[in-house]
């Protein structure tokens, strides 16, 4: 018998019916085929492990989300468009370094006063705003965004110092692919978290209750095609629209049109609604202010309970500009050294935070540092 093809070997592994005696005899005396068979068996086993492992990552909240969507689908444009309970989303993202930064893409605290009855629904306004937020801001020059955050509440992963004023600055050099910076500064003026990349070298600095980490990554292969600023913008869009607003039942949403702004208000939760479920975060009130003509977010305010304690978050944009190339000095593209930080090095991918978590976990396993929660 000549050496069988891979599909025949695979069929053998899968318990093919029929007379397999000739094949078995061949395999017994053919080392290359034994090796191929072992490779296929390994692939099958790995595929099963992979499927099991990925299934284990399923969030427990998914069933509730499906039920929620099922009940609201088609009720309004808003409800049919991916509602996601606030508690669920924030529980999943609470440790995200840039959770606050994402919220911050909204901006400038405004106020809610009466106005004329709007001609468009909240859902339509939000659709237009989401499209505006996702649109590229620039293709050349240096994009600079800055946000001021005022937070009152318990400390958590995103804002580890708790109550106080934070600043976020984001820079992206559209003329030099792979060059960007994100930095979150805490109430004491010190760097809380920062991410810079220059070509293939990326540095992530993060302070946690377990200590500070200074993580350095080298990116192999092609540079990630994603524009980090676009990614931030998209994350902001998801945060604002999927989480703070679309999470709500339509009856909780209000839309007021003013000459200079659209104001979307998220009212108190309805008893028994998914985002009223006991969770890490319960949003009781949120307000989103959008530029009237461009629908770009200007401000956001959120109030509610975080881990059982009341919290309040206000985000305002302080800068949103495109600077000419070279307008930002080289030292502005770096992060300061953090005293006492554990320095780790590794290979980077397009997922900076995943890389960081893995690098720290590897180091923890090697008993070099405590695991980062």
């Amino acid at each position, binding site marked *: 018998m000549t050496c069988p093809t891979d599909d025949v070997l695979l069929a053998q592994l899968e318990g093919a019916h029929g007379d397999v005696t000739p094949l078995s005899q061949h395999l017994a005396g053919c080392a290359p085929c034994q090796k191929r068979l072992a490779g296929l068996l390994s692939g099958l086993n790995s595929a099963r492990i992979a499927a099991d492992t990925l299934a284990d990552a399923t969030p427990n909240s998914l069933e509730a989300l*499906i039920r929620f969507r099922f009940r609201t689908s088609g009720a309004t444009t808003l409800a049919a468009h991916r509602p996601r309970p606030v508690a669920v989303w924030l529980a999943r993202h609470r440790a995200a370094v840039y959770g606050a930064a994402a919220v911050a893409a909204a901006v400038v605290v405004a106020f809610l006063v009466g106005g004329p009855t709007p001609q468009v629904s909240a859902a339509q306004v939000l659709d237009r705003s989401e499209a505006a937020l996702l649109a590229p801001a620039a293709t050349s020059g240096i994009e600079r965004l800055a946000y001021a955050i005022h937070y009152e509440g318990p400390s958590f992963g995103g804002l580890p110092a708790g109550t106080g004023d934070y600043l976020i600055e984001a820079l992206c050099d559209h003329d030099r692919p792979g060059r960007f910076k994100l930095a979150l500064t805490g109430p004491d003026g010190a760097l809380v978290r920062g991410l810079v990349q220059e070509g293939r070298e990326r540095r992530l600095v993060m302070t946690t209750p377990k200590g500070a980490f200074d993580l350095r990554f080298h990116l192999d292969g092609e540079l990630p095609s*994603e524009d980090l600023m676009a990614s931030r913008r998209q994350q902001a869009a998801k945060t604002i629209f999927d989480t703070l607003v679309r999470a709500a039942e339509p009856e909780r949403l209000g839309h007021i049109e003013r000459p200079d702004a659209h104001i979307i208000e998220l009212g108190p939760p309805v008893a028994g609604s998914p985002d009223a479920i006991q969770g890490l975060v319960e949003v009781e009130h949120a307000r989103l202010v959008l530029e009237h003509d461009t629908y770009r977010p200007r401000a956001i305010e959120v109030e509610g309970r975080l881990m059982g304690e009341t919290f309040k978050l206000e985000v305002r944009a302080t800068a949103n500009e495109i600077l000419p190339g070279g307008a930002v000095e080289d030292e502005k593209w770096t992060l300061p050294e953090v005293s006492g930080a554990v320095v780790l090095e590794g290979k980077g991918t397009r997922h900076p935070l995943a890389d960081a*978590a893995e690098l720290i976990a590897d180091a923890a396993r090697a008993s070099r540092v405590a695991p980062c929660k």
Partner: protein
Amino acid sequence: MEPEPLMTLEEPERASAEERVLTLYREHGRRLYGYALGLLGNRADAEDVVQDAFLRLGQHLAKKGDEANLRGWLYRVATNLCRDRQRGRMRHAGAAPDSAGPTPTALSAIAIERVLTRLKPRDRELVLLRGEGLSYAEIAVSTATNPSSIGTLLARALRQFAEEYAREFGKE
């Protein structure tokens, strides 16, 4: 494309469809999520795909659609939804890194996601569907592939996956 509104159904029909959908979710939902996560490498997108798939299942059931192989039907819909999202990412280069970051306990899943990204999209589908225990016939339907080609294509995909998996996890 959004699923059609379910509110057009009468309440008893809607409630019945909901109960059936949730029952099927409990049976297949976690596996389907794992499949979508493996294809997309992004948790939020995977959640959206699973939600959309089950909403469409509700429509399918409400319209008295074919119920002969609902698992295969779900995987086919999920495969198409994932492909749509992958195409969307290619059109919009800034989309969808999983920037929320993982918990340390999710690292093994992340490592597997990383292995899967090294495969061609179709190989990824084949490996995951076989890992889910779908038959060749179901895989053929889910991926719109000629059934007679599945064995050959799957063998090649599994071999590639085994090599990448070993490289990632340091196994022979």
